[in-house]
């Protein structure tokens, strides 16, 4: 039975004739229902993750599933991938009810998933990764593989260096290999789960083009995202999920007829149910930058995995100012933040905090002087998951009064402090004794912000403050960051989200390959222009930006 379905896949790359047959867009297949959900409900303890959702994904279309964190997107992906089983309702394949009780079964029915994080073995070559799932008794044919890869390259522009070590490829390249792997399996349904979150703006555009070509070949593409513009640009059809329910759909015709702005407006309305549009740019506050709080001069940092040996970083942040650090993830932003916070050695150069030389000062000393660092890794670095919320609020001050007296803990004081933070930062937690890992990402973020702002903070370094948060929490976090700057604190905002940088920053520095390759005055009233200028610097095209 599974084999039968695999054979009926509209796209068969194993023979060249198969390709030729499907060479022109398959008009008939475009309307056929490839895979669908019929009144599917999935419960987890305490939550209904997916509530009576019916969807049908058609061949030849890019169908966007849009929703915030916790809207039920991942649960639907899990059910289609055979990892999760619906509690009620069921899945359909080409109109027939079907049960996918394991990932293997899902694959054999021609459903392939490309997950957000690459599912490749980094220490194997690309070829080895591609043949990993093959039957063990069959010898994998190299020449056959090369032939098929060449087809894929021609048809979809997929770059698949068969002999490269997988771990040395960029995330975008790894994603192409995963797509190639799915196509080599003759899939008819391709699910891309948050596939753009790790890509450069150019990579996102390329992926968009590739999805279009795959859909034109008759594949059914399911594209999961929470970015509205991507949904508009790449999708034929958009289904919006909200808290596990299907909030609405935008059909093919109305999506094509609408302008980007009005489509985004529609999607926002579906996602937030008529609430104030989250995309409205916030008015720029009337704050004035004061004196320099944090000054780095020719810093050389031990970059670890990022080569920063030849970069000398200089920057200055004034009180009441937000300096944004833009850049593609992994270009030394984290290293810079850690060096500023004192967690990473500074090899040369000088760092001044409020006029005092702190180049060699410890983490604790810098904190005492008012430097705060909000890490992007909330659960694995910023907090100790199994410790209660209360303990986590004081972990940066272990042993200090008033929470300790001569080394002896004063639990009542700590609990009181925690309750105060929970109240002031509107943290949703059952109580202060709950292990912090039980809280949602947004609530952990609020608590950690509260921890960093307690005492006298003068400089706050935010590293990807809204990473992994849903839209409501992101909006909330941005509002708080602005409030921090308005209160006269110097803010260094590291983010890979360009919109966020442009919305909040006064000036924008761009990091590329461990260096700061440019600093721009922000103009948040012309976000599109800013995005282009910053984007060019991000991809290492400083000359082009200088010329422009």
């Amino acid at each position, binding site marked *: 039975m599974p084999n039968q379905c695999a054979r009926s896949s509209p796209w068969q790359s194993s023979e060249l004739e198969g390709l030729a047959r499907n060479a022109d867009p398959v008009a008939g297949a475009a309307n056929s229902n490839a895979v669908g959900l019929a009144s599917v409900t999935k419960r987890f*303890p*305490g939550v209904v993750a997916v509530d009576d959702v019916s969807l049908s994904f058609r061949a030849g279309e890019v169908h966007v599933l849009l929703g915030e964190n916790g809207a039920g997107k991942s649960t639907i992906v899990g059910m289609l991938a055979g990892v999760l089983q619906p509690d009620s309702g069921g899945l359909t394949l080409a109109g027939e009810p079907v049960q996918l009780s394991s990932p293997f079964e899902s694959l054999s029915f021609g459903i392939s998933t490309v997950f957000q994080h690459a599912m490749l073995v980094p220490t194997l070559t690309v070829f080895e990764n591609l043949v990993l799932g093959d039957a063990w008794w069959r010898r994998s044919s190299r020449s056959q593989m090369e032939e098929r890869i060449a087809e894929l390259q021609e048809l979809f522009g997929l770059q698949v260096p068969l002999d490269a070590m997988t771990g040395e490829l960029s995330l975008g390249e790894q994603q192409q290999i995963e797509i190639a792997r799915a196509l080599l399996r003759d899939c008819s349904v391709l699910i891309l789960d948050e596939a753009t979150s790790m890509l450069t703006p150019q990579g996102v555009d390329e992926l968009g083009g590739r999805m279009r070509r795959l859909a034109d070949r008759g594949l059914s593409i399911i594209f999961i995202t929470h970015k509205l513009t991507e949904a508009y640009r790449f999708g034929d059809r958009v289904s919006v999920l909200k808290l596990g329910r299907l909030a609405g759909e935008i059909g093919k015709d109305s999506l094509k007829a609408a302008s980007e702005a009005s489509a985004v407006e529609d999607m926002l309305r579906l996602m937030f149910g008529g609430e104030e549009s989250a995309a409205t740019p916030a008015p720029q506050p009337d704050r004035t930058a004061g004196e320099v709080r944090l000054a780095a001069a020719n810093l050389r940092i031990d970059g670890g995995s990022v080569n920063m040996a030849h970069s000398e970083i200089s920057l200055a942040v004034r009180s009441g100012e937000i300096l944004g650090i833009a850049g593609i993830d992994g270009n030394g932003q984290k290293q810079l933040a850690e060096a500023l916070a004192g967690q990473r050695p500074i090899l040369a150069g000088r760092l001044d905090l409020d006029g005092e030389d702190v180049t060699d000062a410890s983490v604790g000393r810098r904190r005492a002087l008012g430097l705060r660092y909000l*890490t992007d890794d909330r659960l694995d*670095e910023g907090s100790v*998951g*199994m*410790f209660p919320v209360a*303990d986590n609020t004081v972990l940066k001050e272990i042993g200090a009064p008033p929470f*300790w007296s001569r080394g002896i*803990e004063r639990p009542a004081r700590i609990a009181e402090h925690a309750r105060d933070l929970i109240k002031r930062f509107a943290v949703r937690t059952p109580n202060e004794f709950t292990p912090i890992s039980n809280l949602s990402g947004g609530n952990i973020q609020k608590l950690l912000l509260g921890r960093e702002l307690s005492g006298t903070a003068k400089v706050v370094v935010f590293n990807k403050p809204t990473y992994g948060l849903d839209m409501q929490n992101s909006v909330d976090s941005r509002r708080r960051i602005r409030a921090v700057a308005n209160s006269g604190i110097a803010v260094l905002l590291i983010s890979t989200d360009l919109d966020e940088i442009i919305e909040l920053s006064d000036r924008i520095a761009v990091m590329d390959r461990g260096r700061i390759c440019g600093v721009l005055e922000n103009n948040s009233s012309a976000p599109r222009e800013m995005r282009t200028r910053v984007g060019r610097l991000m991809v290492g095209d400083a000359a082009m930006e200088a010329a422009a």
Partner: protein
Amino acid sequence: MSDAEADLESGELLHRPGALARYGPILLLTLGPILAALVCSSLILLAVGVDPLAYYGYVLRRGLLSGLGLSQSLTRTAPLLLLAAGLIVAFRAGIWNLGVDGQFLLGAVASAALAPAIHGLLPGWLVLLLGFALAGVVGALWSVLPALLKAYQGVNEIITTLMTTFLGISLANALVKLVFLDPGTTVPQTRTLPVPDRLPRLFDTTVSSGLIIGLIAVLAVHVAMNRTAFGLRLRTVGANVRAASHFGLSVPQLTVATFALSAGFAGLAGASEILGVNGNVRADWNPAYGLMVIPLVFLARFHGVATIALIFLYSVLLIGSESAARRLGVPQTFTLVLVASMLIFFGIAEHHLHHRMRKAG
């Protein structure tokens, strides 16, 4: 699925207020494996033709219910408690000090070398104090190499402490046979501290006051780990090294301190056995208490009071099984079968709990 399980499954039991709700699941998860291990061991005993009730009866009567047996059991807990104190520090700080047996033996040899030598020259209490102090220092010194390697090079301490424990055991033997040999006897052993000069006995019993030292050590460690800034630092390092660096803790220094404390306690345990009970170290003596205590500390989930209870239980088992072995012909090492099956069931219970928590989360 039973009702109780169904309750647990839905989280009802956990939300119901009261002591049972708070400690119920933990008790179940601790006592459950012990009961299962007893049943499992009974089956093995039956298979080799021994009446399990008779065996357990002997164990209880000889280890717990007879006056002499009880005092022997209590005396045996002293070194075990000191070892446990050191292991609790290490494990809660995320350090796998599996070298306690080497540290224990070298501590024992150090105290056995020092105490008889200065006995008579100094007041008795000072002899004992110096004996303990030297044993603690020697135990701690034997952990310096694994500590530095772990702290500054990230070398896995499981490997290094196991290696140093083998070296330590051999070194202790060599020291007894070559350096501290008692010329007065033909048996290869150190000089003996006379019985009246050893640790005083408790009241009118034969129980060594090492028991009190052990109890104080475990309770002190328990309080220190849970209620002091130092303990929280160690626990933070143990829970998440990256977070600890982020919080500004000096992970290498705390790692070295953890090793020193843990190994120091192991050395003290050696001293308590020599200065309290044996009086000397015979060549090739290695009770391997450390490897016995490690599973117990885990079983107690590093909780001080629970550790004390389990160690007492284990001592009763050790002493009782010695007589049961003689009477029923069951090898004394059968206690290991019992402890091993406890561990297996403990692992199963833990896995079950995690699985449920994952499902609930």
